[in-house]
Structure formats: C-alpha cells, structure tokens
C-alpha cells in the first residue's frame, strides 16, 4: 500500500469521493450496457438450445448471475457497514445503504426467474428446495436491513443499528443454510435437484460468465449512482457542498 501512488484514505472523504464517483460512473454504465448486450446476444442467438429443456433453460443466464449477486452483495453489505461502524467511516456506511436495495432486487430477481424456470422444468413454480428456501430467507434479511434503516431518523444510529443487524445476519447465514438443507433432506420435498445438471457447453458457460460480469458492472454503476445521491442528501449542510453550487446544479440536470 505504501508504494501505491493513489492515496486511498483521501477517497474515504465524501467530498473527494463524490467527484471521483461521478467521473467513473459513465464508464461503468457504458460497460454494463455493452456486456449485457453481448451476453444476451450470445445467450439468445449463439448458444444452442438445451437437448433436454429446449429454450426454457436460457433463463439461467440471468437467474444464476442474479443469485450470485444477491449472496455476494449481502456479504459486501455486512463488510461495509461493519467498517463504517468500527472506524466511524461515514462513506462506508453510506455504501452499505446504497448496496442494500440492489442486493434485494437481485435476490428477488433470482427467486422470480427461478420460479418461472421451475414451471416448465419441474412442473411447479415453487418447491421447498434448500436453495430456494435459503434465498427466500436472504431476501427477508435484506428487507429487515432496509426497513430498520429507513425507520430510524438519526442517520448515525441508523448506520450503526444496520451494522449490528447485518453482522448478526451474516453469522446466521451459514447456520440458516445448513439447517434448511438438513430440513429439506429430511422432509424429502424436492425430487428434482439442481445439482444433477449435466456439464455445460463452453458457449453457454461463456454467455453466463459475460452476464455475471455484466451484473457486477451494473451493480457497481447503480451503487455508485445511489451513493452519490446519498452523499448529496446527507452532506447537504457540509461546507464543500454548499460552496460548490455547480455540483448541485449538475445533479439537478442529471
């Protein structure tokens, strides 16, 4: 870190991070659009239909990346809010608040696409499969975090309370996952398992990886955009923002 030319601590201050985020935001947005277009094109037109499931399998190009992002963003959320709490870093806490809605939406998307895929593949929209159940619970955790933060007016308390909840949740995620998995095997509800899927053709894998990258870049872009509005909202009294009316106008135009 000492050899690095970038002073990372500088960008922990919202006043310095705000313009930086504004500068990189168009790049991430553009990249996300390109990746989504490429991934969807390969997924829909280049990749062949599955020999068992026909064309309905193509929903996995959005389903699998969404499920990954849902889980990953929850861990990131816990890390950022924990950092914000431990080091009193405002920006990290704001980052956590900015991540939460995106994570919840991806988890929701994973559930909906999973249900839509399940209908042609399994014949039912929903089975109490271990993965589906734990994804559902993950969405409850997101909703808990968001509603706790939004019902506390004092932002300092909201950040810290959210951090406690996120950390308790992250410790609980593996316990919940294993308990659900065990419960599922004992009840023997789902007869069709996701794990028995045949290995993928390289072109399908490529499409899925591109879509995963697209979801990553999209998340970064959306989180940065949301972070910028959160900074504007919370720092509206701060001198750096009051002295720079150009920034506010800029925001208004956007």
């Amino acid at each position: 870190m000492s050899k690095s030319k970038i002073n990372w601590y500088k960008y922990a201050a919202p006043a310095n991070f705000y313009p930086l985020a504004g500068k990189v935001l168009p790049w991430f947005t553009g990249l996300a659009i390109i990746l989504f277009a490429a991934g969807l094109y390969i997924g829909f037109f280049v990749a062949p239909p599955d020999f068992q499931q026909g064309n309905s399998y193509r929903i996995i190009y959005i389903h699998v990346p969404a499920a990954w992002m849902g889980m990953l963003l929850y861990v990131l959320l816990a890390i950022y809010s924990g950092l914000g709490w431990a080091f009193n870093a405002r920006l990290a806490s704001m980052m956590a608040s900015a991540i939460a809605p995106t994570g919840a939406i991806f988890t929701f998307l994973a559930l909906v696409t999973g249900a839509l895929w399940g209908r042609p593949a399994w014949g039912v929209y929903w089975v109490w499969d271990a993965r589906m159940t734990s994804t559902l619970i993950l969405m409850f955790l997101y909703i808990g975090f968001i509603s706790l933060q939004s019902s506390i007016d004092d932002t300092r308390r909201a950040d810290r309370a959210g951090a406690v909840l996120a950390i308790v949740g992250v410790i609980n995620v593996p316990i919940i996952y294993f308990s659900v998995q065990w419960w599922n095997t004992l009840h023997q509800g789902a007869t069709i398992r996701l794990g028995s899927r045949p290995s993928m053709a390289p072109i399908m894998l490529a499409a899925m990886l591109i879509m995963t990258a697209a979801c990553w870049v999209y998340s970064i872009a959306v989180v940065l955009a949301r972070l910028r509005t959160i900074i504007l909202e919370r720092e509206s009294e701060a001198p750096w923002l009051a002295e720079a009316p150009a920034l506010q106008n800029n925001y208004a135009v956007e």
Partner: protein
Amino acid sequence: MNGPSILSMFRWVVWRDLLLAWRRRSDVLATLFFFIIIVSLFPLGIGPEQELLRTIAPGVVWVAALLASMLALGRTFGNDYQDGTLEQLMLTPQPLYLIVLAKVLAQWLVSEVPLVLVAPVLGLQFGLSQNTLAVMTVSLLLGTPVLSLIGSIGAALTLGLRSANVLVALLVLPLYIPVLIFGAGAIEATVSGGEAQPFLLLLGATLVLALMFAPWATAAALRISVE
C-alpha cells in the same frame, strides 16, 4: 471495587424484573393466552382429523411459540428505556453483557417458561403420545432461551422507534428459523418414530452459541440506541 459485586448485581437485576412482571401480571397472562388461542385455532381451521393434527402439531406449537415470544420482546427493555432506568443501568461499572444476560433470563422466566409448562396440555389436544410430549417439552426448554436471546438483539435495535413492534418481527423472525427447524424437527422425529436426539443436541449447540454471542450483540445495540 465500588458498588455491588457482579453476582449480586446480576441477582438484583433478575429479581427486579421478576418483581415488576409480578406487579403487571396481566401482561404475562396475555402472552400465555395468545399462545393458547393460536394453537387452538389450527384444529378449527384445518379440521378435526386426528391423523392430520398429529402431523402438524410440532409445527403449530413451535410457530405459536415463536409468535408469542415476539409479543413479549418489547417489554425486555421498553419500560426501562422510557423511565430512564436503562440509562442508569448502563452507567453502572458492571459489564453490560451481564446486565443484558440478567434481563434476558428474567424475560425468559416470565414470558417463555409459562408457555413451556402449558404446551404439553395443548399437545394432548393434538393427540400426541406421552413420549412425544416429553420430547416437546425438552425441545421447548432448550429452544425458547435462544428465542429470548436472539429476540433481545432485535428489541435493543428497535428501542424507541415508531413502529418497533412490527419492525422487530421483520428483523427477528428470519433469525429464528434454525430454532424452528430443529425444535419442530425433534417433535416430528418422535411422531414418525425416528430419533429426536440429534435435533436436541443441535438445539443445545444453538443455545450455547446464542448465550456466547447474543448478549454481546445486544449490549452493542443498546449502546447504539441509547446515546
């Protein structure tokens, strides 16, 4: 060291909360009757077939216990927060971890133990065998302290908020899921002639984990909420 010793402080907090609960007996009874009514509603909604009732009994009893324990959570810190006692307790030199543990113990004794005692009677309504009733009581005895411990985190986080009661359900119920699975699983296993012990052991493990970590998280949450 100034002030009372740690142990006498612990005893004092528990005793005080028990005394307060005794003077507001109706609160305690309301939780208990809530539990009884919820459990009794299920046969009315589902039908009186003995076989079916026996199958759903574990889940019904545990879900009702979860909901009833939610009702009591607000009281753990709520009254003390309003009259300022909580602030005084947090200013004492004794560790907050211990004070939290004492309050949770009192809360468990007041709101959960009556449920555990009355549950076998409700189990009889569902036609459970004597062996199953015993397992149910043990599983509730092991599981309900975990509910109180995890619930105290939620209660501390939502202290003094407008919609605290609804919010606490949203925060705490997903975290209750492992307890529900292990607890209902133990009863279920005995109903279907299986082995209940692994479930009870897992419940015990959850209890140990919760005892170690939950009061710590609750203490952190209290410090955040009372500033």
